[in-house]
């Protein structure tokens, strides 16, 4: 009861329909039962829930807790500023949630693009009458009518077919049309020639078919299903940010709790201890981290656009930098997708220098061809255009009247025409050698046909392999004079017999000139490049050798072999150093990508076809072709190459790596102010000094003065040598980063900050042990000095953090102009907060004398110099043998 194996009555019976089609009522019932014939997005977590999740993750819960405590404190003891603190923390939660949500949210447009491949209207027979209905109203069992130019609305079993040819490109990726017939077929469902599939295009002929599946149950629906369900999960950066926020949150919470306990232990009042604990927690939480990362990624995506790579989701900018494997198409990505005739092979024994055979060969190439000369330019399929171009250059006869044609299709792999050229009528055939040669009875040697002997066969095969080994796509040509009438039917049997083999033409799709260098860079950068191509193995290997992708004998896996391969076998093959996948269809791609990801690789994959969409979604980084790609592929991808060039991917990888390094830089920059914010609090607790910094001032630093300089670090260009490192294995923060940020840079800053703090206090007459209320002018002045101290030290820090090992003087003090503008803005904002009445009111500051600015400036410079010494030491260690 397989529908494709049944005869016409069997099909009608099994689908519970009739020769007159469904009745309107039955069609309506089936529509209710199976749903409308449309592609829809698979139900996912509602948007509202995804947004709400931004308020319930670990860091957010911690902040909610802090805000709740502040509000509770305000309720119990009003007038202590805890209300503004609580509100500020809630503001931080909301800002972070909005930033993260928009960073992660991506409208699902790939499915919308798929929808456009289905027709709007379709002709059906219902109750014995033909009528046009909207395609979404087609139901299983409906009889549909197809004509040239129609899009197929649903999967259907043909009941009648007259010269029906269907282009299955959206499903199979093959550009060639395939003939369809209504005869029962015993093979696999998907290979059945009596089935037409939703989303494909009728390119010739007509037919009637009974619908077997509609909407998401169709093969096309499965692509939509996979496209909207398959997700690569969190990007490496998102995972890292989660890890970092959890580490920091843990540090913040532990520190807060520790000092809360300590405060109670040393006899401080509950209120002061609580205030202190909240403050120290807030000081440690990097409120500005997520917005800063987002803005940095946005800037990175702009830089990528300038390098002809259009990024579609912000986190993907960094994902590129982390890829360990790139699965690349060959045609158009590694090569130019511009065919050129490179070599011609003629049978032996051409004593006239092959002139007659050559003339005949070019005649076949020129006339058995659909390419055309249009306004002086040859236009058509790349292979056919190259053949016509070469024939024209060779001076071939290109005029003749085509009287019959057997078109090319991917099953026959050949094309035949019947031409009248002058007085003679000729059968001209071109195609793959394996399908042309069995139709030949003779070989054109020395201008005369000679029987196809074993000797000639051997010579021919040798010539064929020689061309293949050079990476050429080989086209065989044959002809025969035709004496009879033009046959009306059975063209294939009658025309394509007893042909005379003429020669072989070797075409090349040359590699893009920049690709070998890009492949070399990938190799140095520890990134594996795996070619996945629909081309023959020999051609693929030859191109791979030419571009330096393989050096030894690569393992070549072809489509049928992959089909038979078990998962463990595939995993084992993928572990081999040099591997090429040839004769692949796009549906193999997703399996390869899945297997690589299962092994923990971070995978980028290129694609252009409709059914590449699931693989593009499955990969960590889906890369679509901007020129040759379909809308569906472009919508499913994370990155669109505007020039379809592999070298652009490599440029983008470098940019991605630079972005990760830059995020690391500003993480350290942010850590460095954590210590001078926290240490004075500790002293406030144990040494009974006045409150050194209000929580609002901390927020002014974290979310205000810091932002632009931190962003400027995100704009640092890639450091030299970045693409000579293996793909990263470490995270954004590690022990060394924490030490450099919190301890090394943090303690230097703290020393400077405390110096000005005490300077202000002592100048104001404060002595050790003296208690100052929060609203005391001297306490406010000291707190303002702490604020200014942190801001000034962060100025030096911007320069210090621009590289982890390279001297700032080598990078150039003024080479990052955004950093300079950031510093100007930072200082201006600090001045507004300190000197403008609005700033003073909001942040509880008082004006300071300019002498403090003058004292802090050399301190900031000192921090930079100390960092230079550390970098010098790091560089020295790196250059030491071993």
């Amino acid at each position: 009861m397989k529908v494709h194996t049944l005869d016409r009555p069997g099909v009608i019976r099994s689908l519970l329909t009739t020769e007159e089609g469904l009745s309107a009522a039955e069609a309506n019932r089936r529509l209710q039962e199976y749903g409308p014939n449309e592609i829809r997005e698979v139900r996912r977590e509602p948007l509202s829930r995804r947004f709400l999740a931004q308020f319930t993750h670990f860091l957010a819960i911690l902040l909610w807790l802090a805000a709740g405590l502040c509000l509770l404190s305000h309720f119990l003891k009003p007038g202590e500023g805890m209300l503004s603190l609580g509100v500020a923390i809630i503001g931080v939660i909301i800002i972070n949630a909005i930033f993260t949500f928009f960073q992660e949210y991506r409208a699902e447009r790939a499915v919308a693009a798929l929808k456009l491949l289905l027709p709007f209207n379709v002709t059906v027979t219902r109750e014995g009458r033909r009528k046009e209905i909207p395609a979404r109203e087609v139901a299983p069992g409906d009889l549909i009518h197809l004509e040239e130019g129609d899009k197929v609305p649903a999967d259907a079993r043909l009941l009648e077919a007259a010269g029906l040819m269907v282009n299955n490109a959206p499903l199979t990726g093959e550009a060639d049309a395939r003939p369809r017939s209504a005869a029962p077929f015993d093979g696999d469902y998907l290979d059945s020639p009596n089935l037409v599939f939703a989303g494909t295009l009728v390119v010739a002929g007509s037919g009637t078919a009974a619908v077997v599946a509609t909407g998401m149950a169709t093969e096309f629906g499965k692509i939509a299903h996979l496209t909207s369900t398959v997700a690569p999960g969190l990007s490496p950066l998102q995972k890292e940010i989660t890890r970092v926020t959890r580490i920091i949150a843990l540090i913040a919470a532990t520190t807060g709790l520790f000092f809360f306990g300590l405060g109670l232990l040393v006899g401080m009042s509950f209120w002061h201890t609580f205030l202190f604990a909240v403050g120290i927690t807030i000081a440690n939480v990097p409120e500005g981290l997520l917005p800063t990362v987002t803005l940095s990624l946005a800037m990175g995506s702009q830089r990528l656009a300038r390098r002809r790579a259009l990024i579609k989701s912000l986190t993907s900018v960094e994902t590129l930098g982390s890829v360990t494997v790139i699965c690349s198409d060959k045609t158009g990505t590694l090569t130019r997708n511009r065919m050129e005739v490179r070599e011609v092979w003629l049978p032996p024994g051409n004593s006239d220098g092959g002139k007659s055979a050559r003339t005949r060969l070019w005649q076949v190439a020129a006339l058995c061809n659909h390419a055309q000369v249009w306004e002086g330019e040859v236009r058509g399929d790349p292979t056919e255009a190259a053949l016509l171009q070469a024939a024209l250059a060779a001076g071939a006869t290109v005029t003749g009247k085509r009287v019959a044609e057997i078109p090319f299709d991917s099953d026959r792999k050949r094309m035949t025409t019947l031409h009248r050229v002058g007085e003679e009528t000729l059968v001209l055939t071109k195609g793959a050698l394996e399908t042309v040669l069995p139709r030949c009875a003779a070989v054109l040697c020395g201008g005369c046909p000679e029987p196809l002997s074993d000797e000639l066969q051997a010579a021919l095969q040798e010539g064929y392999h020689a061309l293949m080994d050079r990476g050429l796509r080989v086209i065989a040509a044959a002809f025969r004079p035709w004496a009879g009438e033009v046959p009306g039917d059975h063209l294939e049997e009658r025309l394509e017999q007893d042909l005379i083999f003429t020669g072989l033409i070797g075409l090349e799709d040359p590699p893009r000139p920049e690709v070998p260098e890009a492949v070399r860079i990938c190799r140095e950068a520890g990134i594996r490049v795996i070619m996945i191509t629909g081309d023959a193995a020999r051609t693929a290997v030859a191109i791979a050798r030419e571009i330096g992708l393989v050096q030894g004998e690569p393992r070549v896996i072809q489509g049928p072999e992959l089909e038979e391969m078990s998962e463990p076998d595939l995993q084992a093959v993928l572990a081999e150093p040099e591997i090429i996948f040839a004769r692949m269809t796009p549906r193999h791609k997703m399996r390869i990508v899945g297997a690589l990801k299962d092994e923990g690789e971070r995978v980028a994959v290129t694609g252009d076809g409709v059914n590449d969409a699931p693989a593009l979604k499955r990969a960590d980084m889906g890369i679509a072709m901007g020129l040759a790609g379909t809308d569906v592929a472009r919508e499913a991808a994370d990155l669109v190459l505007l020039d379809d060039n592999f070298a652009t991917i490599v440029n983008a990888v470098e940019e991605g790596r630079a972005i990760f390094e830059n995020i690391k830089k500003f993480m350290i920059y942010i850590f460095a102010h954590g210590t001078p914010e926290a240490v004075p609090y500790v002293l406030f607790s144990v040494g009974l000094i006045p409150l050194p910094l209000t929580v609002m001032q901390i927020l002014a630093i974290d979310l205000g003065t810091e932002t632009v300089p931190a962003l400027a670090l995100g704009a640092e260009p890639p450091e030299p040598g970045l693409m000579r490192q293996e793909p990263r294995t470490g995270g954004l923060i590690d022990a060394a980063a924490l030490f450099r940020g919190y301890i090394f840079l943090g303690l230097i800053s703290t020393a400077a900050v405390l110096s000005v703090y005490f300077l202000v206090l002592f100048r104001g007459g404060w002595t050790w042990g003296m208690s100052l209320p929060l609203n005391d002018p001297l306490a406010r002045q000291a707190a303002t000095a702490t604020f200014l101290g942190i801001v000034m030290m962060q100025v030096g820090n911007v320069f210090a953090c621009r590289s982890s090992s390279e001297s700032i003087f080598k990078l150039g003090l003024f080479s990052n102009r955004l950093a300079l503008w950031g510093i100007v803005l930072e200082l201006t904002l600090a001045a507004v907060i300190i000197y403008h009445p609005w700033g003073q009111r909001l942040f509880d500051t008082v004006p300071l004398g300019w002498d403090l600015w003058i004292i802090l400036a050399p301190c900031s410079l000192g921090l930079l110099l100390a960092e230079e010494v550390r970098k010098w030491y790091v560089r020295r260690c790196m250059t030491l043998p071993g």
Partner: protein
Amino acid sequence: MTAEAFCYRRILAAVNEHSNSELAARYALSLAQACGARLSLVFVAQDRVTPEALHRAEASLERLFTEAAERSLEVESIVQRGRPLDRIRELVAERGIDLVFAATRREDVARRYFTRTQARELMLHLPCSVALVRLVHPGRVHPRRILVPFRGHLTRLEERGHFVARLAQVFGAQVTLFHAPRSLTGFFHGELHLRPAEREAFVPEDMEKFIRSLQHHQVAHDRRLGHGRVGAAIAVEAALRRSDLIVMGASERGLLRSLLSGNPVEEVLQESPCNLIIFMPRLDRS
């Protein structure tokens, strides 16, 4: 008990006026043929049934009866009036039915947790095994690839194995056993990535027993491990491998647990890319 002890002797296929129930009954017909079981084709007309619906259901019964007779099955056709659950329950008791096939409807699937649907009532209240068929592809009722999602611990494993093996046998289908272990998470690292070899440790022990059952029936099979959300992982696997039929066990999650952590059966029912059988084994030969 031997595998043969789980062979169904009497199978009931509930048919109604909708075409999908007739197509779904073909699974029952094939299984009855494989087991040599007696087949009861039943239509229970509810009080409000229209003459037209009655006519359509009877036509379905007639077609199925003819097809069963052509296959030399011992078959009977029954039309009764009343509440479907009550009448079918009576028939199950009267005739010693082992297994009931019924089709779920699109409107059933649209309801959360199947509440107040006939499908749920049959599943919960019949004393025999129940197979609920969700038909999405009328052209592929003859499966070549059957996907069997596997969770941690399965009850009545032998009967499940037998059911799948017999289905696979009669259709000459290949069975893929699929298990998507729950994701492991670490506090700092979030979801942990497990390589295929590491995931092997999470393969349920029952899977081996199930495989033995398939081997006993000489059914071609393979095993796959997935990851991620169970419902989505099953649907993706079915779409990717181009499965024709998913056979999964009925949900044993309560309403509260379903609300809190989702319900894979419901998810697959709603988004299945191919035909689906939800199977509830209750065969008792003791």
